[in-house]
């Protein structure tokens, strides 16, 4: 079905077949060496299998003219809520699709579908982050649901976790990291990799600033010291603060 990746190949890449042409090893003792030995120089990233699948994801997105956004944060920072607000505001102007990553359940995908937007739930079955091969599968499933309708923006909500997702490129055009006010102001310094690898930083639940010690200017400064290219938004889904700026930013990303 898919010319970019030739499908079927990556979809099962996580389960290397155990059948092979060689006789079984390690029959006696510690599996003593029988043949000759040789060194193979490799010099490649440990993340290579994920990176290759990410490249094919990106090729899919580009071929279809889709702008893709990978949203990462701790559990409960407000990722799904932000998507709900974004969909409400923009669904008449742009075609949005969503991939929802969670360890279990399809509650978040259900929330998105209620807004009248196609969504596919990706359940990792234990893993605390999304990987490219799962996103690839989910993307084809989403296309199936779309039935030929074109997408402008694909949001990928990652599993709630501020560490692991930053290691796994999904082929996205931009990565967006969220920190909510109740989580505390030390997050950029404690989880620098999430900020180093993101393009956008959103401080969420700004309506709660009066109740917490959260110095917004200091947090912005810390985040920029880790990554001076971060585009920063301060929003509240409750009061609507900052949402317009975020919507405008997303509208500008639409291709064509």
């Amino acid at each position, binding site marked *: 079905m898919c010319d970019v990746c030739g499908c079927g190949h990556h979809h099962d890449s996580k389960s290397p077949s155990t059948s092979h042409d*060689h006789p079984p090893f390690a029959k006696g003792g510690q599996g003593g060496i029988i043949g000759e030995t040789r060194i193979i120089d490799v010099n*490649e990233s440990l993340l290579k*299998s994920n990176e290759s699948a990410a490249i094919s994801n990106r090729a899919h997105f580009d071929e279809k003219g889709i702008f893709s956004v990978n949203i990462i944060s701790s559990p409960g920072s407000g990722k799904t809520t932000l998507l709900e607000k974004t969909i409400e505001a923009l669904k008449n102007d742009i075609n949005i699709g969503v991939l929802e990553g969670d360890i279990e359940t399809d509650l978040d995908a259900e929330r998105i579908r209620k807004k009248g937007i196609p969504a596919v739930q990706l359940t990792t079955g234990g893993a605390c982050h999304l990987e490219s091969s799962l996103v690839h599968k989910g993307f084809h499933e989403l296309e199936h649901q779309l039935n030929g309708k074109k997408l402008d923006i694909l949001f990928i909500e990652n599993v709630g976790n501020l560490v692991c997702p930053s290691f796994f490129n999904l082929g996205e055009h931009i990565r967006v990291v969220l920190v909510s006010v109740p989580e505390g102001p030390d997050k950029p*310094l404690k989880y620098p990799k999430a900020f180093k690898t993101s393009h956008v930083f959103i401080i969420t639940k700004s309506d709660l600033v009066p109740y917490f010690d959260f110095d917004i200017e200091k947090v912005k400064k810390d985040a920029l010291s880790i990554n001076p290219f971060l585009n920063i938004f301060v929003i509240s889904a409750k009061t609507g603060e900052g949402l317009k700026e975020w919507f405008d930013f997303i509208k500008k990303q639409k291709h064509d």
Partner: protein
Amino acid sequence: MHEVSIAMGMIDELTRIARENNARKVITVKLKIGKMSGIVIDSLQFAFDAAKLEYPLLNSTAIFIEEVPLIYECNNCKNTFKTDDIYFPSCPGCKSYNLKILSGEELHIENLEVEV
């Protein structure tokens, strides 16, 4: 625990490389892991040793990990220095924070020793 996923990805890669080279088994793997890579070396080692048992090519593979130190060059005075400060390193010579990282972010498979 991204280390588990990284170990599984590594198993896929090692299997592919070993097959391409018609290896009967992989004896050792050398990895280079930077001090600022965000990988907990013990967790990776543990995950790999637990998972490898199911793979005939890898079930007796030993991994050797070289931890690569964090080294910066100062953009201001060109001094090169090693540090353990992964958050806010500054140049010991001129105190500048304007630094370029030279090593410490590695996450690499360097080589394998295989039996052919």
